[in-house]
């Protein structure tokens, strides 16, 4: 049927690299189990790095959960991402201590270096730039985390060097 063809076309970009097979294997286990939705979304995000529309449609169909409800869940939780994520995630601290110690200058420098705003991802998928409410390392303010590394007592001029450590 024409509908399936459309779905297939939407999914082909994912078939080639084996991700699609991983997704299908995952969905086999939880077929028609709407209560598994969050777990399946987490696993699918582990496979793809984010949740592409075609994947959400496939999950919707396999678990028998309406698309509107899936989007309700995906947009509710900050752990889910509808857009591709960078290989490295920069989290800049927005806490009081960091604010007082001039984190805004660090933010400005990162923006300048990467050419993206907070909440965005570089086109080459090298970095995703995010802010968090507080990292909880106020003694090191201003603080930026990249992946699981903590960079404290940062100054704007150190930013280019630190970014160059991540590919």
């Amino acid at each position, binding site marked *: *049927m024409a*509908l399936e063809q*459309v779905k297939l076309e939407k999914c082909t970009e994912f078939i080639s690299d084996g991700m699609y097979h991983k997704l299908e294997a995952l969905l086999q286990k939880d077929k028609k189990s709407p209560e598994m939705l969050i777990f399946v979304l987490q696993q699918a995000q582990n496979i793809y790095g984010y949740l592409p529309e075609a994947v959400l*449609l496939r999950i*919707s*169909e396999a678990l028998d959960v*309406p*698309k*509107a*409800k*899936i*989007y*309700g869940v995906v*947009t*509710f939780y900050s752990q889910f991402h509808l857009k591709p994520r960078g290989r490295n995630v920069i989290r800049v601290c927005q806490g009081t201590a960091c604010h007082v110690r001039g984190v805004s200058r660090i933010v400005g420098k990162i923006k300048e270096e990467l050419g993206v705003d907070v909440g965005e991802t570089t086109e080459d998928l090298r970095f995703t730039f995010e802010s968090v409410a507080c990292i909880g390392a106020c003694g090191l303010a201003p603080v930026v985390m990249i992946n699981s590394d903590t960079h404290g007592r940062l100054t704007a001029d150190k930013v280019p060097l630190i970014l160059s450590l991540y590919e």
Partner: protein
Amino acid sequence: MEIVTVKIDGHDVQVDRGATILDAAKLAGVKIPTLCHHPMLRPDGACRICVVEVAGARNLAAACVMPVADKMVVNTNTPMVRQARRVNLELILANHPLACPSCKRNLNCELQQLALDMGVSEIPYEGRKRELEIDDSSPALIREPNKCIYCSRCVRVCSDVQSVDALSFYRRGFDTEVGPPPGVGLMDSVCVQCGQCAVACPVGAIYERSAVDDVWQAISDPKKHVIVQTAPAVQVSIAEALGLEPGLPMTGKMAAALRRLGFDKIFTTEFTADLTIMEEGTELLGRLNNGGPLPLITSCSPGWIKFVEHNFPEFLENLSTCKSPQQMFGALAKTFYAEKHGIDPANIYSVSLMPCTAKKFEAARQEMNASGYRDVDAVLTTRELVRMIKEASLDVSKLDDEEFDVPFGMLSGAATIFGTTGGVAEAALRTIYELVTGEEIPTFEYEAVRGLDGIKEATVKLNNVDVKIAVTSGLKNAREVMNRIKSGEADYHFIEIMGCPGGCIGGGGQPINGGSDYRTKRASGIYQIDAASTIRKSHENTAVKQLYKEYLGEPNSPKAHKLLHTHYTPRNRY
């Protein structure tokens, strides 16, 4: 069920354990204001307008969701309660556009009414007005998300009553939005355009796409011959919108009003409802005799049709190929009627007056052009007719009753009952019984298929064959029936399915009425009209007989097929 005693505002009232404070207050004759609450929907406790004081409790309780307990003492009218309700309302109002005079729901808005009832005189908070995009992708419904108050009534009706699940909440807190999935318009979603969301909405955040201006324009165009067909459920629903008793039949006054508004000919969809019985009855007999496919499922309700296209595409061949009465009328108006009266069909402007928003979508379906033109040019809902009546300053109650015009004004009582759930099945029985047995049907009233129950079943003996019938309305019930068929649990021969709860009387284009018994009253109006009719069987409609003789030949003839039958398209499930 255990009975508990609750004291509300000093009065003892006995209720079932498990009832809410709101239920108990109703029994005690105490009115608690509500906003997100709706009698048809499970309570949500979202708006906090119904808060009350419960003795011994730390916080105010939301009466709509708080279950009663034995010896509970509730006060609904204390300074703290009044203050809290007002602040909650003011906070909602602070984020609301307050564009009341230009809003579709002006003077029929629950938010506005609450502001009036609670004596809100100023809104002390600045709030944040949003600038979200209006969704006008659908020919039937328009969503204006800036007016949304996040009560979730549309989401609940779409999910819990209709099982369509086109709508949901997205994101959180101030960023919350309600609608179809992000970036998708209603038209491109699984929405079936039934309009139950518009009926459930307490404000003007979702409403019908109005055809009023188009119709006025056609009426004022001297080249246009403007005809109108009126669906049976409309005549029993306009009364309440004009301040009269719900369910009061207004057929004659409606015809008179339409003539005053300037329509050239006033016809009725009941004429083609009778025609539908001839076509669909013949189709059913054919399928019974030739081995199916069975069950044969009715196709009058466009919301149901879109629902089945999305959710049960494997059953499309079970749908009757008959167009809905609206579309049969449209096809005949620009062919038979045009030829007979020597009118160029290009100059006919064909309007239908419907209790339904999905009819707007149906009229816009690409395949609905058997006449060589768009068969139905404009669809007005009952609400839009009321608006036109008000625009024209007509006092309908003072008009003398008038008749429909010939030939498409001829109808039987069997066609009238199409307007309520069970009506199509009953009308079909009245005709099929006589066609098959050659005897007169012993009774007109077929009680087993009447009433507002969600799923009704009946078995009728036709020449020693048991014909199993199911009647259902509301799409969640329809889904249940279809799942029973899919699993092999049920083996019906004929199923009547209407998309809206109660059938067309509860349609998404009907007057918005906060009460709970208006459907019963509208249905009773429908049955009153039928009982008072002289012709009560579709096959005795002389104009229908004449139409076959002069034009169509026989039911299901090639010409009838070309004009009166259609096909369906599978659609995406998700």
